[in-house]
Each structure stands twice: as C-alpha cells, then as structure tokens.
C-alpha cells in the first residue's frame, strides 16, 4: 500500500507540473484529469475507496469534462500555444517559484520536525461509515452546503434564462 501511495503521489505531482508548464490548453486540462485520477489512487492507497471512487466520478468524470468541453469550444489554435510559450519565460515564473519554494521548504521542515510515526495505513473506510458520519455529527455542514448549492442552482438558472420577449419587441425586430 505504501508503494502505491508514493507512486500515485509522484504521478499526481508530475501531472500537476504538466498542467502548469504545458503550452497547449487541452493538453494542460488532460494533465489535470490525470492528476485527479492519481489523487483518487492516493485515496485508495490510504484505505478510503469511497472517497477515491467519488473523486473519479465527480471530478474526473463530470467537472473536468466540462472544462475540456469549454476549452475545446474556444477553438484555440497555434496562436494560443505561442502566447502560452511567451508567458512561460523564466522571467515570468522565476519569482513566484522562488516564493513557492520557500513555502515548500517550510512545509517539509514542519513535517520533518513533527510527529515521525505517521504510516501509510489505516482501516478501510466503507461507504456506510462515511454516510453515518456525514448524516450524524456533520449534518449541519451537509445541510448548509445543500443550501449553498441550491442558491447556486437558482442563480445559474436565472442567468441562463431566456429573456421573455414582449410582443412589441419582436415587432421591432421584424421591422429593423
């Protein structure tokens, strides 16, 4: 299990680097899909198969499909690739990467100094336990997120609504 954990963790990191550094937008989004599948594998290795399966269904199977869909519809050609290349000059990314590296060093240092007895193992968390936890102690959070999603749904359906046309406006259009 430990081997699977580290291997899929490595794949996730490399794929995420691919997302950032690939000049082609569609390829970048596909790297993100690979990264999400690798994170799902990390969940499997940690003994949370339910979370892993949901990660693939929701993120890789639904949300990323929409991303790929939109990027495809934009019809980005060689011009977009050239523009991305221009943005990937060292002058652009060197500063932010240095700052991020400092954060990474802090993170590694904290983990190094902290509790060293952490192992990649654990009992397998089945769907039943997840459901009992979600609808037991965390019920309020679940309901609040449901409210949030409902609000988002109402907003989306309002924005996407087709404007109702009054009789004179159609008449005007016909005249013009």
């Amino acid at each position: 299990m430990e081997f699977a954990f580290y291997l899929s963790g490595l794949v996730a990191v490399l794929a995420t680097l691919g997302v950032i550094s690939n000049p082609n937008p569609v390829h970048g989004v596909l790297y993100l899909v690979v990264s999400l599948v690798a994170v799902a594998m990390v969940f499997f290795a940690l003994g949370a198969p339910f979370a892993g399966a949901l990660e693939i269904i929701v993120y890789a199977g639904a949300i990323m499909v929409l991303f790929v869909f939109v990027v495809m519809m934009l019809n980005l050609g060689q011009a977009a690739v050239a523009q991305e290349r221009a943005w990937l000059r060292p002058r652009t990314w060197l500063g932010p990467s240095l700052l991020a590296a400092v954060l990474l060093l802090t993170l590694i240092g904290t983990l190094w100094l902290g509790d060293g007895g952490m192992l990649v193992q654990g009992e397998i968390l089945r769907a039943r336990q997840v459901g009992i936890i979600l609808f037991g102690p965390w019920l309020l959070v679940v309901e609040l997120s449901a409210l949030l999603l409902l609000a988002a749904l109402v907003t989306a359906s309002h924005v996407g609504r087709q404007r109702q046309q009054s009789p004179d406006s159609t008449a005007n259009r016909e005249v013009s």
Partner: protein
Amino acid sequence: MSQMLANLRPEWLTPAVMDIFVAMLQALVILLAAVLVGAILTVIERRLLGWWQDRYGPNRVGPFGSLQLIADMIKIFFKEDWIPPFADKTLFVLAPAIAMASLLLSFMIIPITPGWGVADWNIGLLFFLAMGGINVYSVLLGGWASANKYALIGAMRSSAQTISYEVFMGLSLMGVVAMAGSFNLRDIVNAQQGLWFIVPQFLGFCNFLIAGFAVVHRHPFDQPEAEQELADGYHIEYSSMKFGMFFIGEYVGMLLISALVATLFLGGWHGPWLPPIVWFAIKTGVFLALFILVRAALPRPRYDRVMTFGWVVCLPLTLINLLVTGAVILLVAPG
C-alpha cells in the same frame, strides 16, 4: 492419491499461488469473452435488423452468413491506418484506447456465477460509474483531436448528453443500493434471492435502461454519431483498427449495460432448473436483443429534445423513486 499429487506439486505452488492463477485465468477468460461477444454482436445485429425489417441482411459469406465476421475483420485489418496530418496525433491514438479499455475494465465488477467474477469490491457499482465517467473522454478527445467540424459537433453533443444522463444513471442505481445495503454487486445479487429488484425498483430499472442507452450512445440516443447529419460524428476521421476499436467498443458497452441490468434488476445468476451461467447468459441476451430491437423500431429524436427529456422527465422520476424507496425501507425496517 492426494498425497501423491501433493508430492508432485512444486515447492512454490502453494494454495495461495494457485488461487492467484485461477483468478488470473478467470479474468482473462472474461476479458476475451467480452471482446469476442462484442465482435460477434456486430454480425448478429445486422442479421436481426434484417430479420425484423423483413430483408435478408448479410447472408453470403459462409452458411447463413456465419463467416461474415471473419470477412469484416480481414477487411478492417487491411485498411490503411491513416492519421490526418492536421490531427493532434497523441490524443488521436489515445481516444480509441480509452473507449475500449474503460468499458472492458468495468467487466471486472460483474459477478457472472457464484464462482466466477474478477473483483469482489465493496465499491463495485461506483467503479462502474467512474469508468463510465472516464469513457466520455474517448469521444471528446477523438472528436477534438480529429480537427474536423463534424467530429467536434459530435463530441460536443456526446459530452452534453453524457453529463445529463450520468446524473440520473447514478441516482437510479441508488434505489437498488439502498435495498441491498451494499455497493458490492455480489451482495446485490444475493439480496435478490427472493424477489428480483425489477419489481420494487421498476422506475429505477426504466431510468437505468434509458441512461444506459444514452451513455453507450446507442440508438435512439446516437446523436453524437448521427450518420445522416454528422456523417458519423466523432469517429469520422478514423480508419482501420482505430475505427474498429470505437466500433467494437460500442458493442462491448451494449454488452456491459445488458449484463449490469441483468445483475442489478433481474437477479443475476438466480433462476430455477438451469445452471447459473445459462441464466446469466439468457438475461443478458434478452437485453442485447432489446438494444437491437429499439434500433430497428424507433426514430432518432431531435438533439435538444433528448436533453430536455433527461432533465425534465427522467431526473424527477429517479428522485421520486429514491424518495419512496427510502421511505419504504424506513417503514419496513426502521433504524
């Protein structure tokens, strides 16, 4: 005698290793059977369509057209394997592989008989939904990488259709999961010993069947590849074996959905008198025939009607089904 056999056995061949070998052999047989049945279905479909439409169908090669499959395979192998110069080569090659692999992987979770089956997982059904989600990419990438307008329109239709139908496909199965109390398909089959789930879950059954048609984009939900308007949609630029993988992949998907319906709603291998494998084959075969009969009988609806039907009719029905199922379970067995 058994002592003698035990002496003949090499040192490394412990019972655990034997089990691994048997499991691998089973997996291999199931994989080959799935591909083979998918290939044979291409011919069976044309014969059945011919029969139902009062014409002959392919009946020239071999007795009753039985060798048509071999003729088709020779033809498809000898075609030029052409990649358009304007295509995105990596994705163009990757797309048919995803189409075939994601569907074949899903066969892992289907228990065929009490002794046969590859994976016995507690997330079984979720694995199928995950693979169904991954399968969308084959059409999307194939359509985009071809750099062809018809292919792109096909890919666009396919992704929109799949997303709308995947939502209630998952929900329509949750009634079954709630009644069986498990995502494991073996447990679901065992829970149907007394009563097949098609009776208490009839709405779920109808919705899953419709969603299944849409997800493997078979007629009447084959707008992504509508040959009259889109000249075959997303696989228009494909030739030879790459086209063959899309083509066989579609039939493998049909087989997968049929096998799943048989497992989830018709009690899998359960049935009187006949051995389990025969019952499983009969139930799967009936749904395969239904797939073909629907293609022979129904016209193709307009694209926006397909989407509206999914969101306005099927989704509310599955939600009602889930609500009633939950209420009944709580009434019958509270706590």
